[in-house]
């Protein structure tokens, strides 16, 4: 906590933390969840087409709808969850100790509750739906704070763009890739250890080469030859031959070690290439899934702002005149339909 600025928690009129406060709380919860390895979730909520409702029915109706959604959110969440308001009338909620299942269940409930609220504006029955973007931090997740936040924002935007009245849970690819990287690092370490265990201790300084079996055999052969022939020059020749033979032996061994090392390096490189490819595949799959979800969103449609048939209001300008005109339109259509059915 010492690294964070001090914030005086003063909930807003709606009973929500301010944007600064909720971000601070989210940061604290995020760090705590990372430190102690428990799951947490960040949820961004927006009322669908709120600006449109604002334009149609004015500021008061917009506020009433927001209050209704906040009330529904309060009823759906626990006391230990934090709710805050963000810019653009978005609501942010932080859910510590909440698994993916818990969060999706909360989101489903919240969508249903919001859908069921019957808002009234000047006697009209309005319907408001919400879009929810969820970002979850898994146990032991390595995702950074910025990614955690932006994932929730992206998910919210995606839910809104897909027609609203839905939640979208997005999991950053960071953790998945991090897990793969860790596996690769462990595999590389294992290969290095294997290699080390299989290699003999080799000295490469030819000035101080240890005596080998080949060297001993050659020396014995030359000794026997010197005793037989008694030639003093044979001793010099012996040294030269032994040195050359041992050098050739060391070179051959070094080449073998190098070949084995290259082979292992290639294996590591190949694994790293596979990780890169998997990451690319993951990104592509994620994009495709978003596209599919977008298409699905189009099919599921965008909710009307009206729950029931509205009808002309008594206090409408030129009420009598319009009522008469609407009756005439209806009668003409009824006549048309009867003619058609006949």
């Amino acid at each position: 906590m010492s690294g964070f600025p001090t914030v005086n928690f003063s909930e807003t009129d709606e009973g929500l933390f301010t944007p600064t406060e909720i971000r601070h709380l989210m940061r604290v919860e995020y760090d705590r969840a990372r430190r102690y390895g428990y799951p947490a979730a960040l949820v961004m909520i927006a009322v669908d087409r709120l600006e449109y409702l604002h334009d149609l029915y004015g500021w008061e109706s917009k506020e009433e709808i927001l209050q209704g959604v906040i009330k529904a959110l309060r009823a759906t969440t626990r006391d230990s969850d934090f709710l805050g308001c963000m810019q653009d009338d978005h609501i942010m909620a932080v859910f510590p100790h909440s698994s993916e299942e818990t969060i999706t269940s909360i989101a489903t409930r919240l969508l249903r509750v919001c859908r069921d609220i019957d808002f009234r504006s000047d006697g009209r029955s309005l319907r408001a739906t919400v879009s929810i973007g969820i970002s979850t931090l898994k146990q032991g997740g390595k995702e950074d704070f910025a990614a955690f936040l932006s994932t929730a924002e992206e998910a919210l935007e995606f839910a809104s763009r897909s027609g609203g009245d839905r939640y979208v849970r997005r999991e950053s690819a960071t953790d998945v890739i991090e897990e793969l990287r860790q596996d690769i690092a462990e595999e590389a370490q294992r290969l290095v250890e294997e290699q080390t265990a299989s290699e003999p201790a080799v000295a490469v300084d030819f000035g101080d080469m240890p005596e080998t079996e080949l060297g001993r055999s050659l020396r014995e052969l030359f000794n026997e030859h010197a005793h037989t022939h008694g030639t003093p020059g044979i001793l010099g020749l012996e040294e030269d031959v032994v040195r050359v033979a041992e050098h050739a032996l060391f070179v051959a061994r070094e080449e073998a070690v190098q070949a084995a090392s290259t082979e292992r390096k290639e294996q590591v490189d190949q694994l790293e290439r596979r990780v890169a490819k998997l990451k690319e595949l993951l990104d592509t799959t994620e994009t495709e899934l978003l596209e599919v979800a977008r298409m699905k969103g189009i099919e599921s449609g965008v909710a009307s702002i009206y729950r029931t048939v509205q009808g002309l209001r008594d206090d409408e300008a030129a009420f009598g005149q319009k009522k008469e005109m609407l009756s005439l339109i209806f009668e003409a259509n009824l006549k048309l339909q009867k003619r058609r059915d006949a």
Partner: protein
Amino acid sequence: MTEENKDHGVLYMGIDLGTSRTSVSASNGIRETVASYVGYPKDVVSQKLLKKDVLFGAEAVKHRLSLRFYRPLEHGVLKSSEKGKSGDYEENVRAAQDLIAEAIRLAKPRKDELVYAVIGAPAQAQIHNKEAIIDAARATVDSVMLCSEPFAVAYGLDWLDDVLVIDIGAGTVDLCRMHGTMPEDTDQITLNTAGDFVDQQFSELIAEKHPEAQFTIQMVRGIKERFASVAAEMEKCVVDLPVKGKPTSFDLTDPLREACRRMVPPIVEGLGQLVATFDPEFQGRLKNRVLLAGGGSMIKGLDSAIQEEMHARLGEGTVVRIEEPIYGGANGALKIAHDMPTDFWEQLK
């Protein structure tokens, strides 16, 4: 609302089913427009190539050579809509049905919502046409009503008393006199000197002035939509048209201006008829409350040209162009749908 469907929302739609484009405004905030072209792949090969059973709007125009290509509305009404008159009837009805379904799909209705639509029909559409439009719409909506297009425009803007509405589409120019009640047949005039007429005139003038130029009606329409104006000082309309296969630049400013101006006299003549048969006490007020709507109203300087012609022929006149020519009809139809009482909708289900 009954108990079993009280959880359903009601999606209202206003549809302006036009010869050139179909616009939709819905109560979920969505407004869309699609060019009124429908195409079906000619054969299995083109179907495989296009990967679709039916294409709409610009996409259909782009691939029209591989398609059985339909513009289901002509002069503002369904082509050959009197059964038995033409072999094309079934195909045109099918194309119109698909076009209406596409317009409704563009408004993204939810499956669990009731869809109530008001469709703007040409002011003097024949009964067979109206039936055909209703047939086309009923497949995709829960309840549908038709209303006169110019009336929808005026209703949407709350101009209900002593107003003359000019709704210029591609197929027809609808003139409608509003005087506080539902306009009757005598309050409405439909002219054929609309967008397609301008295209035809423009084509003839180009052919006359530049006989070597090669062009199609689609190309002419594209040029018109880009440069159309009746103003004396207008943007130069210089375009490339092929001459024996070689793109060649032509200055079509004068032919285009002339073609566009040819639609003004019939409109003012029609307005004159509607004014002349109105209560003399209110004729002055009527002439000074003229609403210009529809895609054709986007021709630059048209409001001023009509106003000048009115001054010349009728002594006075004030023409106001609506803010959203493309969606004026659809917005008005949406407002009618919204204001319509519950039991009216229920009875037409």
